[in-house]
């Protein structure tokens, strides 16, 4: 297997780690949707407080979460600045051509900054406390209701597992191919955009052939071992709901209740 670190999982033993991955995924999605309920300073303060409580509950250092936000901080600032200069409404403090700074623009820029940051932070809580394979299992569980409308959930689950299994292998293979092509004189960092675009084919084709050959070998191996789809298969990793999922659900219900009470109607 690859030596590269796939995923951002950090081992731990706090309350958040004890939750079922299905519960964590569900709460994360619901939390992101709930952010839209905030529409005034009080509701934004409440949701920020709840987000920070979730961060504290992970028992991880603040640096972990800062690392999640850091790569996007420039983009968040730029986005907020665009809002600041393009939004109109309320008291206008400054105006030039199509740009203006208004009270509405200032408030909106702050809201967008907070919303952007909270979504990244809560997604980081999920990804640093849950292993990628657990997230994949949770996704498979979330997709199960689609079976009713004849969506081939079993096949989708197989594709998810294959993709998860082969990302590290293909990542290594890609680096190996790039190094091999470099040793033959290929230059990926020189020349114009078109020259660099054309340089992609010598990396992609060997990678593609490797994938195709692996697919054929793997399917032959699976069929020779009697693989007949997901019918009657048991799970190696069994997911179990726990009392911690109930606690997080109660925490979430409390958040929604407070937001509904304090939001501007």
């Amino acid at each position, binding site marked *: 297997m690859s030596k590269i670190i*796939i995923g951002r999982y950090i081992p731990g033993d706090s309350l958040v780690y004890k939750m079922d991955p299905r519960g964590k995924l569900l709460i994360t*999605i619901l939390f992101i949707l709930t952010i839209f309920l905030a529409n005034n300073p009080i509701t934004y303060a409440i949701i920020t407080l709840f987000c920070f409580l979730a961060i504290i509950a992970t028992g991880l250092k603040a640096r972990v979460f800062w690392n999640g936000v850091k790569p*996007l901080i420039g983009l968040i600032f730029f986005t907020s600045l665009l809002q600041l200069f393009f939004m109109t409404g309320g008291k206008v403090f400054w105006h030039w051509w199509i740009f203006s700074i208004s009270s509405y623009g200032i408030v909106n820029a702050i809201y967008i900054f907070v919303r952007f940051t909270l979504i990244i932070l809560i997604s980081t809580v999920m990804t*640093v406390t849950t292993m990628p394979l657990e997230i994949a299992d949770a996704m498979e569980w979330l997709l199960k209701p689609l079976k009713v409308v004849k969506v081939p959930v079993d096949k989708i689950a197989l*594709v998810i597992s*294959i993709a998860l299994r082969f990302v590290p292998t293909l990542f290594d293979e890609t680096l190996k191919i790039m190094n091999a092509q470099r040793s033959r004189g290929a230059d990926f960092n020189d020349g114009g955009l078109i020259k660099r*675009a054309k340089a992609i084919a010598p990396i992609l084709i060997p990678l593609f*052939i490797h994938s195709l*050959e692996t697919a054929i070998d793997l399917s032959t191996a699976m069929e020779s071992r009697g693989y007949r789809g997901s019918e009657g298969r048991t799970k190696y990793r069994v997911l179990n709901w726990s009392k911690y999922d109930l606690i997080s659900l109660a925490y979430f219900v409390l958040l929604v209740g407070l937001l509904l009470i304090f939001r501007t109607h």
Partner: protein
Amino acid sequence: MNAKKILRTDLQQMIFLGMIVAMKIILGQFSFGPTTVKVGLGFIGSVLLAYFFGPVWGTIGGGISDLVSSAIFGNQGGFFIGFTLTAMVGPLIYALFLYDHPVKVWRIVASTILVTIIVNIGMNTLWLHLMYGMNFNAALVQRLPKEMIIPWVQMVVIYVVLQAVSRVKIKK
């Protein structure tokens, strides 16, 4: 034997789909070009999904790639179902032009322009507007300059890649 016809069983197709999804995720981590106009390689994965699996499984593969990518690397900017939809519509548009058709320049140009307008400019801007409450016009201003340059580079890459993969032969 041609790469498209070598996959005999349903299981082989599904495993190959998983491999192409994995390729798409990996390619999404690489980019080329100067810092001002970085071209990500994730779109090649969308094109391969469309070319080999058509509109149905290509679309599903696109969605899976977004889900798996967020499970592995964690979505920068947070998970949002809209971006999963974006990852699905890209391969769908490419598939309508490229699946079961010979590789022609006009097909590549038309599909890339449609993906740029509908997916990159339209849908992605809409998701930013919905997710972060960004002003739609401000989000457009932020996105448009990049989207005026990148599609033309993508067209060259797609043509080179499809010409190459359509000639792949494997002896088994």
